[in-house]
């Protein structure tokens, strides 16, 4: 019920509520602004990059990361399998991921507050509840708003599906969008018939003209506007662009990720991180298994399992996993009970997320669902806690405040604390 103005919670709430006079309200406005502190600078980052694997539609937790082998009514068709991490079992559709579990950790007590796809997606990706007043930025935008860009590629890339808007963080924190991994970006190269010589001449002339224009008048966005042309030119000519060319990988590597756009997306994510991209979001839909849950999940397992398995094993082998945090989550889980269409329905009560690398503990499970996989049994985790954990590992203070264009202070992470026992050191 307090969802409108969550950011004010850290102010003494009673004072705010008692403030009715305009004069006092002014004072409060000022005091809120003075609270804006960027405390992140002195933090030490354990990770530099994030790969978010976003399973859209509500991925069944029971069939993947939180199997209940002893309860046939819940488990349905799927068995559980052992993994390379002691004592952790996964659903049978994830054999290759199971092999990599020694590198990863699970949170099995994640719970959300929304049962609608749109609202839940918003909640999981922004850690705020959807309100009519403000659009909050999604995790990738938050991360890139706080970290310096590395390399020539955009800091935030979203693959085969959109990231949510960057909200009040503005256009500069929007995701750069790749429709389908392995397909060339139509805007990354010059149009047919235009030589680089001509293109350079155009830019040179443009610079002269702009210089002349800016000598007589000025605007705060002149430099930024011209900067985008320089950045675009750099982007088009950057050797880093080769990251988008998946043909550069060995055929057996490509095969290992699976012949699917999600598999190619994971491979691309790995290559983008190598070029300094801070946050890659790879999207896959189709998890809304209201009917034929097991057929669908077996098919989807065939897509996600080789992709995640290969991504984790490649990153671990190259040592990149140490500085790259892989997060896999969905907007909610699915009902443990199987409905009359052999499907599972929306279940935000408890579900799971996978976290690997980025300096987090490996081969462990945090929190548990109850025997029915219905509610958190202990140590409940909120979306905000996940966000805070990611920020913490990247050296970003989750309590950092940013101002909306209207001057309203907002916390990067609304209410959440890093999951201490997943942090090392």
């Amino acid at each position: 019920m307090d969802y409108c103005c969550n950011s004010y919670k850290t102010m003494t709430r009673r004072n705010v509520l008692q403030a009715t006079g305009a004069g006092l309200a002014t004072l409060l406005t000022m005091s809120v602004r003075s609270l804006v502190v960027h405390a992140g600078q002195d933090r030490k980052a354990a990770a530099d990059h994030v790969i978010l694997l976003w399973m859209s539609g509500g991925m069944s937790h029971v069939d993947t990361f939180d199997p209940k082998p002893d309860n046939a009514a819940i488990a349905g068709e799927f068995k559980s399998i052992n993994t390379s991490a002691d004592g952790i079992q996964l659903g049978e559709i994830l054999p290759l991921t199971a092999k990599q579990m020694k590198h990863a950790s699970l949170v099995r007590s994640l719970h959300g507050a929304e049962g609608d796809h749109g609202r839940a997606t918003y909640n999981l990706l922004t850690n705020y509840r959807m309100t009519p007043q403000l659009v909050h930025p999604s995790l990738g935008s938050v991360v890139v708003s706080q970290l310096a860009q590395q390399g020539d590629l955009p800091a935030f890339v979203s693959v085969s599906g959109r990231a949510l808007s960057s909200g009040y963080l503005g256009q500069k924190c929007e995701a750069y969008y790749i429709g389908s991994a392995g397909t060339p970006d139509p805007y990354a190269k010059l149009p047919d018939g235009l030589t680089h010589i001509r293109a350079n001449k155009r830019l040179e002339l443009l610079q002269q003209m702009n210089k002349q224009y800016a000598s007589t008048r000025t605007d705060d966005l002149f430099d930024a506007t011209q900067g985008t042309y320089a950045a675009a030119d750099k982007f088009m000519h950057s050797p880093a662009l080769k990251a988008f060319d998946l043909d550069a990988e060995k055929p057996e590597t490509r095969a290992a990720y699976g012949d699917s756009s999600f598999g190619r997306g994971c491979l691309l994510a790995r290559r983008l991180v190598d070029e300094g991209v801070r946050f890659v979001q790879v999207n896959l839909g189709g998890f809304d298994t209201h009917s034929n849950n097991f057929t669908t999940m077996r098919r989807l397992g065939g897509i996600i399992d080789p992709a995640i398995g290969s991504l984790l094993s490649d990153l671990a082998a190259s040592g990149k996993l140490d500085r790259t945090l892989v997060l896999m989550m969905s907007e909610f889980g699915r009902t443990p009970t199987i409905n009359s269409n052999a499907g599972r329905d929306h279940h935000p009560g408890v579900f799971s997320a996978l976290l690997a690398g980025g300096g987090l503990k490996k081969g462990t499970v945090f929190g548990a669902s109850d025997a029915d996989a219905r509610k958190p049994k202990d140590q409940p985790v909120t979306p905000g806690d996940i966000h805070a954990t990611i920020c913490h590992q990247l050296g970003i203070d989750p309590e950092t405040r940013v101002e909306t264009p209207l001057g309203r202070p907002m916390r990067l992470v609304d209410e959440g604390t890093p999951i201490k026992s997943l942090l090392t050191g």
Partner: protein
Amino acid sequence: MAVRRLRVFTVSLGACTLIAAAAFSLRTETFAATPAKSERRSNAPQHIDVLIADAAKSKNLTPLPICDDPAFLRRATLDLIGRIPTYDEYQLFFKDPAPQRRENLLQRLLNSPAFVDRWSVFFGEMLNVRSREEYGRGLDLFIRKSLADKKPYDQMAREMISAAGSTKGAQPAGFLLAENGDPFQLAAKTTHVFLGTRISCAQCHNHPFDTWKRRQFYGVAAYFGKTRLYFPNDQANAPVVTDDQNNVVHWPPNNKKAPPLDPAWPFPVESKTNLQEVLDRRNAKLEARTADEILVDRSPASSSSPLRKDNDFAYLDSARDTMEDAAEKIRLAPTRDKLAELVTSAQNRLFAETFANRLWAELLGRGIVNPVDDFRADNPPSNPALLKFLGEEFVASDYDIRAVLHTIMLTQTYQRIHASADSPNRKLLEENFCAAPLRRMFAEQVYDSIVVAGHLTRPKHRPGQNLRQVSETLVIAREKNPPAPEKPVAPQPAEKMTPTEKAPAENADAEIDDLLSNPEEKVKMLAGVEMLADPQEVLKPTTPERRPAKDYTYEYKRITRVYDFNPSFSTAFEIRAPAPPEHFLRQFGQSPRQLLGDQRDQQPALRQALILMNGDLANEAARLGELEPLFRLLAEENLQPAIRRIYIDILTREPTAAEHASAQSLLATAATRADSLSDLRWTLLNSLEFRYLP
């Protein structure tokens, strides 16, 4: 008068229905010059300048002089019809004797059909109209029709707030449908949009930075407490909006046993005595109206078309309502009628001031109350006398949007030059309306201006001159165990491969050929790639995992085809909004039109530069076509006329001597004249001077 109005309306609606297709001409026809009779105070612009000068004096600021004619032409054309002037319009402007030029231009622009398109987008952003959705489409049409009809603003607002009945067609009820009839959302939206006030935080707690009490917010919501939507079982019919007997807004909140709360108006009401002079002028204007204008019925109850046939109710999805009940209710929304009256009353100063302030901000880059949706005690107007004056002028004009725009644009304040780059008090001058701030074109203005500057409103190459070859993968879906008769999904081009159309399997290849030989399809495909540059839509179905795999097999077929690349573009103000996130318009900051307070994002971005450097729009605008007037100038020995034409086409001004020289030296180094002129055009189209209003 009646004839002209009818024509305007027809043009507007006719064009609306054709939005999806790509190749229409942008409106560049010469406007009919029809100076309207003016009931305004004739010295209103001068009075505004005095109010600005008084305020400036107290801050030791001296207002800057007014801009030259070409700058005014460009600025006013962009503001009123959303694009730069064409070469012909430039010529026409200078045909008038200097003292009448600006006034004549304003009359032409205010009466142009393109004015309706451009300002419907202004309304669309103000009201978050999502015209890709059915209800939003109806509301969008309502707005376009209202603007074409020159409907007074208060009447538009009244019709939206008090809408009842079927929502089919051009209907104001989309205002209610957009919020699903939710009383709290509607209270928030009504106060936000029409009264520039953010009271919705008070839904959950007393407002921290303002004086709004939770109960006051609930009192406004109660006006919408009886609003109900009925959704038809049948997809073909539109939802129906009506009022129920029961008010769902209770006080205190979260208590199911709490009684319904009576609606209560929390905003100040001005005495009629204080408004007498303004109301007299408004009445004089009303009386002066010609008979055909009075035909527009202004009573709220008749504002939406009541249902007439009994079978119109057959689809009401309501178990407990009899048809008679529903029929009765559908015509009535008395609680909202009351609210509509309160909101739009002249005695509610906020209503007129909020909108006049929005118009001011649109033209001057900054509201007198800024931001425009944040009227409150702690955010006072920078010039209270000016705000009051504008509000009263708006009422006196009988809420005539064009009249207020006209008044503002005739002021020296609107016509000032920019402060110089090295001026130490540039920001102060701009904030106090003593210098024109640098305003960036918004997305639709950028798009349309590139289109007209590059003569892309119609094909500019001869047919067959620009054959291009493309390779692409088609996916052909076939049913695994086809029942007879066999009906697999037809192959579709990569741009739009959603398997919707059906065709016999044996004809699959023929279908492809057919598709490729159809010139209209090519244009559409082109539009799919460039205008609706939405890679997600383009590419999503090529991957088998998204399909119901068990029923179909997929054949991937690599084909090469040749098409004639000779694009033309329609106006961006008719593209349904909000465009997909990857679209040119969104990438250039079009409002997502989702939440209250959503607005344009004017920040530059890498993607924008890439689109202009490598995308078709800017490159095709720059490329020289044989059918362009410019092409003839290319053959002449002296290229000065060509260079001049390019500068006027793109920057609405004559080139300087230095610019002539620089362009000549560019020509000297290029492989061909056509290439070098196209490089010059590209450069001008991408320049800061192009992107900023003069």
